[in-house]
């Protein structure tokens, strides 16, 4: 059962940066790119790649606007993303408790 739980872990979430991004967004309604970059301690390019993967999987939405003349990118968790993250936590619990 434990092995099954490990195999069932969502591969989209099962990456440190993507897991970190979803952990931020589960607590907040919306977070901007700079905050996510600082929180996850990653580079612009790396974060963009991971955000695109999360968006392609339908777990987050990315909104690009302008603040004055500067581009401003914000991310938001989707309903699917919230469900996927909760399921991931449940699976981690199963692994911890050896169910």
């Amino acid at each position, binding site marked *: 059962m434990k092995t099954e739980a*490990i195999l069932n872990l969502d591969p989209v979430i099962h990456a*440190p940066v993507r*897991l970190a991004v979803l952990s931020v967004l589960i607590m907040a*309604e*919306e977070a901007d790119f700079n*905050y996510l970059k600082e929180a996850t301690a990653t580079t612009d390019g790396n974060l963009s790649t991971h955000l695109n993967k999360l968006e392609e999987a339908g777990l987050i939405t990315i909104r690009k606007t302008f603040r004055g003349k500067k581009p401003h990118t914000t991310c938001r968790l989707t309903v699917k993303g919230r469900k996927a993250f909760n399921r991931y936590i449940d699976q981690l619990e199963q692994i911890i408790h050896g169910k």
Partner: protein
Amino acid sequence: MNSLQLQHEISIIRDMIAKTRRETAESGHLFITLGIVWVAVTLAIGLLEMNAVNYLIWPVLLIALVLTLVIALMIGLREGKRERVQSYPRQIFGALWIAVAIPAIFVSFVFPMTGVYEPDLVPVFVSPILGIGFFLTGIIYESKGIVYCSLSWWIGTVLMAYLGGYARLYIMIAVLIIGYIGPGLILNIQYKQKTRTNED
């Protein structure tokens, strides 16, 4: 997945949640500053009444209202600038205090100035409104301390309704300290605790 990987995943989740909680925490600066301003204003009104210079009360109150709006705007702008994460509690908190401020302005300024009722009844009418604001703030930020502080507004309303004169003034000052500055200090302690937890 071995136990080290598992621990690493859990530590990532824990760290991110702690950081985001810290980022979305309310500093309490607004309540502390405005609480001090309104204690000073209430004391000033008491002194003006004692010295029978009642014609200065409305100008003092209007200056206090403008000062309140300026302070709220300045603190709002300062905290808004660094707001990189939006949370539902903060949004609800903001909307709640707009909803509280509008009737509070009507009850404290518009109605007494236009002769709907005597100005000395303002504390009786404004206290239940502010009580709602602080009670719900306590619920939003899951603080029993703020909820208990907010009760002072409703206890104060009852006392001020039946006790007039300087007793009403003293009760209002006590309510402002417990029910206005108190929640600000509680929020500030929580904010500092979260900051410290995040830095550890």
